[in-house]
């Protein structure tokens, strides 16, 4: 079974700073997807960024980028130029690509607070 670990329960940063959220996972699969989801207070979960395991290039989406280390089974999220709207719970998630129901396996989440 796959597991996802987010060891930092909470972080706070100042507006405009850069912050890195860590995530490790365990799997015997060779092909899979990794995701970061954001859950703002009292709002819906939304996708921030995704990474396909077979791609060596790290994914980027505007201010969000990942550092994917497949051998180390590490998938960290970097948020540049933090904004107040980035305040949210962040969840790292794993999805198998074959033989599964495409269910997401989530970590416990990390609460990020961006202060003015």
């Amino acid at each position, binding site marked *: 079974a796959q597991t996802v670990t987010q060891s930092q329960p909470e972080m706070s940063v100042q507006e405009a700073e850069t912050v890195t959220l860590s995530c490790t996972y365990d799997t015997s699969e060779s092909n899979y*997807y990794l995701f970061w989801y954001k859950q703002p207070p009292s709002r*819906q979960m*939304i996708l921030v960024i995704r990474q396909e395991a077979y791609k060596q290039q790290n994914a980027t989406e505007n201010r969000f980028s990942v550092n994917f280390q497949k051998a180390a089974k590490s998938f960290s999220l970097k948020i540049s130029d933090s904004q107040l709207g980035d305040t949210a719970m962040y969840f790292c998630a794993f999805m198998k690509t074959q033989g599964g*129901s495409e*269910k*997401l396996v989530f970590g416990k989440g990390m609460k990020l607070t961006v202060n003015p």
Partner: protein
Amino acid sequence: GAGVSQSPRYKVAKRGQDVALRCDPISGHVSLFWYQQALGQGPEFLTYFQNEAQLDKSGLPSDRFFAERPEGSVSTLKIQRTQQEDSAVYLCASSPMTRQGAREQFFGPGTRLTVL
């Protein structure tokens, strides 16, 4: 277009009561997922539908939990004889069928169930 909607948004039940939670996925989305999110935790997979077929129900915690999607659109998650440990936010997500790549899951706002 409209996103994933869920009703009711909040439900309070007395222990032993039956409850039914509804999910309206994005129109045309083939896949539908239910997750359970306990307080302070990441979502945990319950069950998955592709159209009207329930392809994976491995996450349902007991036979008191039942889900259906009879016409391949709206889905209902039913919990019989509710227990206090069923208190959680129940999230529904839907996903389109695409030719390749991980299918992004679009989440609803959730139903917060409190069992007294």
